């Protein structure tokens, strides 16, 4: 019989440790699908980007599209609206950051930094007021556009200018410019 004190089998036996290690690793790996299943599924990811045809949107008109569950304002600005946006001095702005997802955090909120080069008449903004989340007015012809000709949030009176920047009211930040690009002259892909 064994001469060592055999109160319990030697638990540090390699085979026992190996077996338990395999079982443990297997159990840990098996957990991964349960975590991953909570991430957005394939049908949601299919709508992560959308394409918007701009040809029906004439000079001065605007459309609202739904992207990732959020409203996105697309306005074809008139030349005067573009000029008004460019004329604003940075020092007069409440929020001086461009809030453009394609640009770094502290880029100045000039009009070129909120539009695409060569397509300055087009402005694309996430239509959610940065105060408490209402959808600002200004897309329809009959809507009030606020004192700066852009958008006006009726909930608490935030005024945005023609580049979607907050000028007066409780909202702290400019309307967000989502990631988008022109896939053709008349079509953009958002997201």
């Amino acid at each position, binding site marked *: 019989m064994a001469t060592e004190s055999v109160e319990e089998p030697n638990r540090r036996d390699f085979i026992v440790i190996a077996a338990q290690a*395999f*079982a443990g690793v*297997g159990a840990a790996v098996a957990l991964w699908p349960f975590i991953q299943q909570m991430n957005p599924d*394939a049908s949601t990811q299919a709508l992560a980007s959308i394409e918007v045809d701009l040809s029906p949107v004439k000079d001065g008109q605007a459309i609202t599209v739904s992207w990732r569950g959020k409203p996105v304002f697309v306005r074809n600005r008139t030349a005067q609206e573009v000029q008004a946006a460019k004329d604003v001095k940075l020092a007069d702005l409440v929020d001086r950051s461009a809030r453009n997802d394609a640009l770094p955090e502290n880029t100045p909120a000039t009009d070129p930094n909120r539009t695409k080069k060569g397509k300055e008449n087009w402005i694309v903004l996430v239509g959610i007021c940065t105060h408490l989340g209402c959808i600002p007015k200004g897309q329809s012809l009959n809507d009030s556009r606020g004192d700066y000709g852009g958008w006006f949030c009726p909930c608490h009176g935030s005024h945005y200018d023609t580049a979607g920047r907050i000028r007066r009211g409780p909202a702290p930040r400019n309307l967000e410019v989502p990631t988008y690009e022109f896939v053709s002259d008349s079509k953009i892909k958002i997201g």
Partner: protein
Amino acid sequence: MTGRFALRPGLTSVGILLGALAAMLAGPARAAEEAHPEIHRQHWSFGGVLGHFDDAQLQRGFKVYTEVCSRCHGVRRLAFRNLAQPGGPSFPEAAVKSLAATYEVDAEPNEEGKILKRPATLADHIPPPYRNDQEARFALNGALPPDLSLIVRARAAEENTPFYRVPDRMVRDVLAAYQEGGADYVYGYLTGYKDPPAGTKLADFMNYNVTFPGHQTAMPNPFLGGDGMVKYDDNTPATVDNYARDVTAFLAWAADPRLEERKHTGVLVVAYIVLTALLLGLAKRRIWREVH
């Protein structure tokens, strides 16, 4: 074995069982039910433990579906994007996008509340040929062509196995991982249109099919155009038999688009668990060594 009753109950029990067997075999071996139509098992690339889809076959099958079947049958649980994803026909995404754009789907209500049409995108599901069951029945003399997204999973190759062969059949099917009964049925159905035997009375608008239970089906032979009715872009012979195989494979994918991922992961997981079981068995024996 001690005990007075050692031998007698043994014989009695065995006797009862043999008698039961004899009675079941001697009398009408099957109950009053009609025997199932015979369905021959086919070879499918996606069958068995190492099953996988042949992209080219799925693409041909999709072509057969669009040119022959889509007139009546929808595949509304498929989205256009599925046609481009791995594990399936794997069409190039740009091609699928253009294909989708040729279909129209309902847009969101416009400002007046009207629902106009817009071209479909990758995210949309493939629009069916009929808006609803009633429209289909109206157009087809009361017949309702089922949606084909799950048809391969919703059918089985019923077999006429006598009861004493059932355990053997089950063990062999489980070891071979045979789950292609639906595909065998669908292929058998598509190639099962034959002339009815003499004296058969076909009901109005019905067609004779050797595979369909009851043998009379409302669906006419889809391949009446014969060989060549669908032009294949690769070198595969454009025969009716191949049309049936390819469209069945496509529908098998449509019913189970994650099959490849499932079987591939399965091989790894089962191997890992077998290995772990082996190690645990050795560990158990190590721990119990002193006890034995």
